[in-house]
Structure formats: C-alpha cells, structure tokens
C-alpha cells in the first residue's frame, strides 16, 4: 500500500485509526464521562480535596458563607500544600494579627485543643467555622 495513493475507503479507515489514537492518548471518553457526571465544583473537590491536600472544598464553603475578599487573611496548610487564596481572590497576609486566619489540615495529638497547639497567636482568635481539621478563625475584638 503506497502512502500517497490511498483511496477514500482506505483513507477513511486510516482516519478512524487516527481518531482512536487521539481518543486513547488524551483519555477523551473518560474525561467526557467525568465532565458529564460531576459538576465543576465536584471535580475541583476531587482534585484539590475538601479538607485534605489543598482543601479547595473548605475554601469554597467559607468563601460562599462569609465575605472574605475584603480582608487580609493568614493561611496555613499544615500538610505543606500550596495555599489557594488566588483561586478565591483572597488576600493572603503572613502577619499574626489579621482579622481572619485559615488553618487547614491541622495536626493534633490525642484530645489536644487547637488553642493549646503550636500556634501561640491563636489565643487571640475564636473559631468562626470548622469542618474536620480545617478552621476559619476570627480575631477577638
């Protein structure tokens, strides 16, 4: 079979092979299924975690519940993952006296309270919202 002289039927077959290679290489059927099956927020949570890894789900919950875009916020992810303030238009601030403080994936021992943990400045804050080991803290006025 000479490459240059493919008739239409053969070319159609070749085209079909190309189609299959592309679909397989990019995992298109699964990606399509995933987009059809889970909405954007669910897929984001699958990738970033709710209260694990980057904890996208927790950011989403508190962003929807509270208006956080106006204030500078200190953010710590105890698992060392990158923080997602830019995805939620939140202004991150590393100082210890911000109005809000987000603590993600907090690691504690036994029944240790978050207020007795390693962050001393946390005593100036109260818990505004909590989900598992993720906290949104608000500074005491």
């Amino acid at each position, binding site marked *: 079979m000479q490459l*240059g002289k493919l008739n239409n039927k053969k070319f159609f077959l*070749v085209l079909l092979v190309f189609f299959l290679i*592309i679909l397989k290489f*990019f*995992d*298109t059927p699964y990606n399509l299924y995933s987009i059809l099956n889970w909405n954007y927020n669910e897929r984001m949570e699958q990738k970033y975690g709710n209260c694990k890894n980057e904890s996208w789900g927790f950011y989403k919950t508190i962003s929807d519940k509270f208006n956080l875009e106006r204030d500078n916020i200190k953010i710590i992810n105890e698992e060392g993952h990158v923080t997602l303030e830019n*995805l939620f238009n939140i202004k991150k601030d590393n100082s210890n006296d911000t109005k809000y403080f987000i603590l993600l994936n907090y690691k504690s021992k036994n029944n240790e309270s978050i207020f007795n943990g390693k962050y001393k400045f946390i005593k100036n804050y109260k818990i505004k919202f909590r989900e598992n080991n993720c906290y949104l803290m608000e500074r005491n006025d």
Partner: protein
Amino acid sequence: MTEVLSIFFQLFIFLVIFSFPLTPKILNNNFSQKEKFNFIDTHSINIIFFIYICLIASFLNFDLKLFFKIYFLLSLIFILFNYKTSIFKFNKDLLKIFLIFLLINISIFFYIGQNLKLGWDGLHWIEKTFIFFNNENIQKLSEVSVHPHYPHLGSYLWALFWKNSFSELEYFGRFFYVYFYVVSIFLIVNSLKLKNKFLELSIILFFILITFDPNLFAGYQEYLIFSSLIFASRYILMINFENKINYKFVFLILLTLYTNCWFKDEGLVYFLIFGIIFILFLNISSGSKVLLTIFTISLFIVQYFLQKYVIGIFDFPQKISLSLIFSELVNIKILLTKISKILIHSLIAFVKYPLWIIILLSVIFHFCTIKKFNKKIKYFLICLSLNLLFIFTIFFTFRSFDFMLKVSLDRMFFQTSGFYIVLILLFLKDIKLLKK
C-alpha cells in the same frame, strides 16, 4: 451537559474570531509572496492580530465583556460577508485535516476540564488573571504577591476567555493556550505542503504526541512562547533569504517574535536573539539592517516604558552579580560542578521533552549528510547555538542554582523547542523523505 456544550461552543468561538479580519485572498494580494498564504497561515496571522488587539485593550482597561462582544460580532459579520473564503468553506482534503484538528482541540479541552488542578506557577499567574477578570485597573498588576514585574498578556487572554465563556469557568480561559498550540503544530506541518494527507496527519499527530504536556496547560505560560515561536519559524520558512525581501513580511515576523516579550521575561531575550539575527540574514542594505535593528530595540523600549510608567513596574526576577559570576568562573571546581549539573539537568530535560532529541539528531544528520547549508538552515543553527548558550549562561548566574535547575530548566528548554521543528522538517525535505 451544559458544560460539555459550552466546551464545543468555545471551540466555535475560536474558529469564528480567528477567521477575522484577514482572508488568504487579502493576504496574498498584499504580500505578493511566491509562496501563497492558505487557510491555516491566515488563521495564524489572525491570532497574532488578535493578540495585539488584546495587548492594546489591556492597557486601555476596556470592559472584557464589551470588548469581546464587539470583536465576536465583527468576526461573525465578516464571516457572513466572506463566507466563500472563510475557514468554514472546505474542500474534501481540508475537511479531513479539519476533523482531526477539531478532535485534538476538543480532546485537550476535555482533558483540562477533567484535570482542573493549576500548577504552582498557575496559582500565581491567576492572581494577575483575576485583576483583568474583575475589570480592575492595570496598575494593580504591580501589587500582586509573586513576580509582579512579569508580563501580563497571557493572564489577560486567560481572563478574557474565562469571562466570556458560556459557563464562565476558570479553565475555559486556558483553552486559548490549547488552541494556539494546536494551530501552531498544524501550521508548521502544513508548511511542508504535502499532497499526501495521510503523511501530513501522521507528522501532525507525531508532533502533538511528543510535545503535549498537560502540566504546562495548568496555568503556565510556556506554551504561549512555544507556539508563537512556531508561528514565527513558519513565516521565516516562507522567506527566501537570497532574494529581495518584502518589508511587510519582515515586520510580520518581528511582530510575531515580539509577542514573546509580553508572555514571559525571557521572551525578551528570544525576541532580541532571533529578531536581530534574522535582520542580519536579510538580503538588504546595511542601512536598512541598522534601521530594522533600531526598530527591534525600540519595540523593547516601548515595552519598558509601558511596564515602568503605565503599569508601574519593570524588573527581572534574577539579579545578576557580575563580581560573583567572575569569582565562580575563575574557580575551576565551582565552574566544573555547575557545568556538569547543567549538563545533567539538560539531559533530563531532553528526555522529558524528546522533541529536543529529535532536533539535535536532525542537526547531527544535517552536518553528516549536507555539505553546504543554505541560509535558512544556517539561521536556525545560529539561533539554536545562541539559545543554548543563553540557557547555560542564565542558569550559571542564578543564585538559587540547584533549585532553579530542578524547577525551570526543563521548561526553558521546552519553550524554544518549537522554533527548531523546522530543522527537523528541513532535514526530512533534504533527504527527500517527504515526497510531495
């Protein structure tokens, strides 16, 4: 289902807006080149045109929705009036290529739709994207937390298509990067003008398979430089360095290279290296060469002034200490350690992006099989040498040397690899492997 339909609609939007304002007929009448512009060439030039309109719009703080609506409407009207010469009118052969083009685009769109996670750089570039997305003033770019001095055009394009997508979801903004990339691969392979469409599709697929890196679609800007350099190399291929040059074409090439300055800092170096060598290779008088060089440098100065005085910041991420470099150069131990580390990480980068291996093999075969190089090959070989020299030098000067080697050397290699695909194609042509 709405999201899937939106993805298809996004592809339709790209097809429409990049079919405006030029057609092959307009281009061929204006440029009167020996080699004629076809659909894909025209489409690529329309993308460059659109990028420049976006660059201007970004400084004028136009409302993203309004700007997009006007541009889209103008494109639609234009297509209706020029239907016969638009991309939506195909012959049979083109249709087969077009189907594969659509399928690759849609497949990568779905891929991104499923793999939504942004990379480390992406999470910082998006800070700039948000400024445009929220229609805030361009001066706010100087206040972002990481690398405020980095150029903003990639972020602007991201914000524009995000804001104007049907679902208004973040990842739709990144589809432009995909479309730009896929067009560039089709464009460069199309330059071979193969009659054998099976062979053409095979080469396209081959390049897609070895240059597709999903991580770099996670908010990184590397594909923008990669693709714009492919665009530039395709236009350079159309030039005959021995003949008199059409100045419109020279400006088209220089302006295509110039877009790199607005994507990333290192784009400026690529623009100056590739642009000035290109001017030196042209068959024009010395006076004209000087004028074109002044034009090239003045484009850089324009960028400097716009960034410094309109945005409010112009800088480079790495501060170079000449005394430190000199002390390291004279210390043989440090010199050898650094060179060996750069070489090892370069090898890793070549394995990660095997396009480089093929490029280097083509260069070796060029030297082995072709005794006399033509000017085009010489041009690309000189660019390649200076490009590699630049990468070696810049990494040698980095203070956080080991860290930078690990996180950015591979990406720097990838960015420019697109420019040298022509070396592979020219080699294949020279050994008569690709019969038209």
